[in-house]
């Protein structure tokens, strides 16, 4: 950062001390800060962005980031940190923006979060750090956008002038990490920093987990994702793709091979279907299949990439989580699509997706049909979907989750004409890895049971975290689990060492 940004700042510190007002590195007082308004995110216009798969948000400029950073009060007891599952030292990284030291700011971010560019872009900040920020009511500091800015600024810089990353020479035991999603990546990064010899075994041909196969490039540009993921290999983590744990390689074999601890970060990648008639019609996909085809296999660029995806004119997505928003928004961008609907049995208030994704979807012309439940898929004689029979719902009493339960309104059935249906009503953990470890305790929801403190499963030396443990959740929660598990693995192996 250059001197000019410190322009309106360096006043005399003596006068401010007299007033007992805290002055930041930029010389502003609290009162000055409160006057600055939260900076909007520059974005591609909706009509433009639905024609491409480029990033929707442009990201803050250096000036915007600096001014947004000036809004942070550098609270003595920063509440924002409590809202972040990875406990990122938020004021510290923001203060470095003001000091002009983005390298240090990035270092602070990376110390707590292996994936700051990703999290800055995809965390549901409004329910996390920005919810607990002291300024939440007035308009919280745009913590996510600042995090994204710093990380992407540095990744760009490092692309031009690669830093000298010291490969860490392992001095400790071999640890196997299963799954290269956010949970596994984080655990691996932390463990390699502690001196362990870490190998990640990933089933797909690319690392990233949902970040790569689920989240579309217009939300998470692949250049940035690859750079962020690549950094763990530079640190010395051995990432081995095309390795299905439980099939290609087993727990037993890895034990024989000298691995002393395991972390299962296998996610929740098993699609759920609705169980209504006609669901195996042609043109009905799980959101996972659709998104995998488009994002991981790059079907958006067919025939330059080999994998095709069929999308018709009228595409319906059922569900209202992030997966549903991504499916509907991808559809909006596919050539030939005229209408992209979201059908959800509750209302906007209950929709689990990030606010920003719902807003973006609305701007892009996604048609929302709330309080609507699909009951049957209509097909022609060639098994192609032609439409969907639905029933109207109303909200009744709250259910176990505390949300009001949708109940069908009698005689309210109607049809929606469509030729593509994307089922995005939730995911469960994939059992391949967990079933291959004898004695591993699994809950009735199919998730791996762990000790909340240590993240250790019922099998000694086997730890787990992320979606595999909690069911479909968030990136940063997976990051938090990865961190927690890395510490627990370290403690466990230290104890083993002491004991032997």
């Amino acid at each position, binding site marked *: 950062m250059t001197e000019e940004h410190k322009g309106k700042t360096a006043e005399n510190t003596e006068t401010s001390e007299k007033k007992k007002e805290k002055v930041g590195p930029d010389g502003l007082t609290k009162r000055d800060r409160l006057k600055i308004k939260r900076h909007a995110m520059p974005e591609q216009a909706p009509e433009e962005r639905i024609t491409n798969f480029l990033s929707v948000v442009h990201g803050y400029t250096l000036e915007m980031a600096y001014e947004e950073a000036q809004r942070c009060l550098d609270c003595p007891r920063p509440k924002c940190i409590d809202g972040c599952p990875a406990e990122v030292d938020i004021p510290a990284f923001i203060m470095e923006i003001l000091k002009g030291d983005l390298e240090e700011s990035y270092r602070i971010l990376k110390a707590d979060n292996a994936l700051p560019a990703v999290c800055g872009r995809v965390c549901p900040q409004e329910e996390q750090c920005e919810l607990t920020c002291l300024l939440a009511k007035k308009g919280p500091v745009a913590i996510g956008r600042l995090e994204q800015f710093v990380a992407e600024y540095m990744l760009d810089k490092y692309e031009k002038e690669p830093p000298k990353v010291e490969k860490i020479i392992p001095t400790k035991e071999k640890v196997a990490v299963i799954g290269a999603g956010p949970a596994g990546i984080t655990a691996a990064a932390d463990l390699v920093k502690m001196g362990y010899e870490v190998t990640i075994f990933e089933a797909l041909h690319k690392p990233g987990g949902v970040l790569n196969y689920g989240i579309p490039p217009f939300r998470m540009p692949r250049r940035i994702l690859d750079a962020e993921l690549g950094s763990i290999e530079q640190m010395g983590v051995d990432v081995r*793709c095309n390795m299905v744990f439980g*099939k290609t390689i087993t727990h037993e074999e890895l034990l024989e091979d000298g691995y002393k601890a395991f972390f299962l970060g296998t996610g929740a990648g098993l699609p759920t279907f609705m169980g209504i008639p006609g669901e195996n019609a042609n043109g009905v996909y799980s959101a996972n299949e659709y998104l995998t085809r488009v994002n991981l296999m790059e079907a958006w660029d067919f025939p330059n990439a080999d994998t*095709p995806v*069929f999308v018709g004119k009228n595409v319906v997505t059922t569900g209202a989580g992030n997966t549903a928003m991504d499916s509907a928004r991808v559809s909006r961008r596919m050539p030939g699509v005229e209408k992209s609907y979201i059908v959800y049995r509750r209302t906007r208030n209950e929709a689990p997706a990030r606010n920003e994704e719902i807003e973006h979807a609305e701007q892009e012309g996604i048609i929302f049909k709330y309080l609507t439940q699909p009951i049957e898929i209509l097909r022609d004689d060639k098994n192609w979907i032609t439409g969907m029979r639905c029933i109207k719902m109303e909200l009744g009493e709250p259910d176990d989750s505390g949300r009001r339960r949708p109940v069908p309104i009698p005689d309210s059935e109607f049809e929606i004409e469509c030729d593509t249906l994307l089922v995005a009503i939730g995911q469960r953990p994939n059992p391949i890895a967990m079933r291959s470890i004898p004695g591993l305790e699994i809950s009735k929801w199919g998730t791996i049971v762990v000790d909340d403190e240590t993240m250790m499963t019922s099998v000694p030396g086997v730890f787990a975290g992320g979606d595999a443990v909690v069911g479909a959740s968030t990136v940063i929660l997976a990051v938090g689990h990865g961190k927690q598990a890395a510490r627990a693995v370290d403690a466990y192996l230290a104890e083993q060492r002491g004991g032997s």
Partner: protein
Amino acid sequence: MTEPKPNEIVFKKRLSENTLRIEVVAPLIAKKAQPGQFVIIRVHSRGERIPLTIADADAERGVITLIYQEVGKSTYALGELEKGEFLHDVVGPLGHATPIEKYGNAIIVAGGLGTAEMYPIARALRAAGNHVITIVGARRKDLLVMVEEMESVSDEIIVTTDDGSFGRKGVVTVPLKELVEEGRADFVITCGPTIMMKFVAEATREAGVPTLASLNPIMVDGTGMCGACRVSIGGKTRFACVDGPDFNAHEVDFEELMMRQKTFCDFERKSLDLWLEEHPERAQSGG
């Protein structure tokens, strides 16, 4: 001589105009592969993930054998790779192994490329003490593959061609029905075109002969993540990549499977046409 590396093609042979046999270095897969399991491969960095059965595995040499037919862009592109070149990705072994038990008279009904998929199964069934009778069918003589190999692992072999250019004239279900009627069928397993498997299921249904069909729906990940491979078995949806690929043939909804297999027809045609435009030498030879 340098050590062969993972994914390297160490052997390649054209068995017929559009059928090839390759051996690929994949030590971890070779060590574990069991009859009935498959791999998913990608030919290049923007390639499709395509499933191919592990036709044979040599744990000692760390190689697996794949036998495949050139039917579309990915398999044509695979056919272009020479010995010493590499597949971009190979993952497996996927799916369940075929249940190998002592059934008595075990009948294998293979059509077209299903023959390659049945080879390791025939061998295993025989090793388990079954009397293996193999029925191989093809449209014409030149489309028959691996007959000699099948012969070497079967107690009896019956070959049929639609046009009578080799073996018995007609379809595989004729000799199958005879065996069923003679009471010489204790167990049947079939692999080949979906329509053929459907008729095999019909041929054994009445007599109640346990019959397995090795299904080949469209797949993407092969690990249960996408649901592309879903099939209806006894009215329930199952994922062929993790629950199969073998299922009780009498419960399979073959009609649905056949229709689902056509989902990407237009795209596949376009892909292949573009590929053949870029490879005119192959366009002449068929395709």
